C-alpha cells in the first residue's frame, strides 16, 4: 500500500493567479498520476509524471496550463496556472506502487479548488 499526503486540502483563489499542489508519498514509486474531478463529474486523468522526464499529458491538457514537476521518486507538484472559474475542481494525485505489475492504485486526500 501507499500513504499519500496532498496539500493544500482546499483553497479559494482569484482568477488569473496560479496554485501549486503538492503530493508526498511514503515510499518510492515509479509513476505518479494527476487527476481532475469537475463538479458532479467523474475523475479525468490530467497527466502521468515519471521521475527524471517530462510529464505525459492526456488529450485536452497542456503543460503551459498544468505544469508538473517530479524531482524525486516520492514527490510531485501540479500547478494550475492562470486560473479561471472553470478550473474549480477537485485535484487528486495517485500512485500505483507496483505499477509495472498492474497493482492497486492509491489516492491522496484531494485538493478542492475554488476560483472566484
Amino acid at each position, binding site marked *: 500500500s501507499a500513504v499519500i499526503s496532498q496539500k493544500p486540502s482546499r483553497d479559494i483563489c482569484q482568477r488569473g493567479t496560479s496554485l501549486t499542489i503538492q503530493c508526498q508519498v511514503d515510499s518510492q514509486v515509479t*509513476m505518479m*498520476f494527476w487527476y481532475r*474531478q469537475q463538479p458532479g*463529474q*467523474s*475523475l*479525468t*486523468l490530467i497527466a*502521468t509524471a515519471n521521475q527524471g522526464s517530462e510529464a505525459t499529458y492526456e488529450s485536452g491538457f497542456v503543460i503551459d496550463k498544468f505544469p508538473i514537476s517530479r524531482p524525486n521518486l516520492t514527490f510531485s507538484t501540479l500547478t494550475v496556472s492562470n486560473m479561471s472559474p472553470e478550473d474549480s475542481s*477537485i485535484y*487528486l494525485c*495517485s500512485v*500505483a506502487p507496483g*505499477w509495472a505489475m*498492474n*497493482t*492497486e*492504485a*492509491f*489516492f491522496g*486526500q*484531494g485538493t*478542492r479548488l475554488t476560483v472566484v
Partner: protein
Amino acid sequence: GIQVEQSPPDLILQEGANSTLRCNFSDSVNNLQWFHQNPWGQLINLFYIPSGTKQNGRLSATTVATERYSLLYISSSQTTDSGVYFCAALNQGGKLIFGQGTELSVKP
C-alpha cells in the same frame, strides 16, 4: 479506448436495505478497483478485484473478467455509506479509467 459504465447513476435506500452496484467495461482489463468518495472528496479504496470475489464486512465485490463486469454489494446499509461509488479499470496502457459513478443516499 476502454469504456467503463456504471449503473444505476443514483440510488436512494432506507437504512438497513441491501443494494447492488454494477460496473461494465468494454475491453479486457488488467485491474478493476472500487472506490467510495466521501463528502469531503477523498477516495477510499474498497476493493482491488481484477477477478473473483472478495468480502470486507458488509461490502463484497465480484468481478467476472470474461464477461466484462463487476458488482459491488452493500448489505444492511448505513447512513455513513452515503456518497459516490466509483469503479475504475486499468487499461492496457496502464491508465486507470473511471466510470461515471453511482451516487448513493442512505436515509435513516
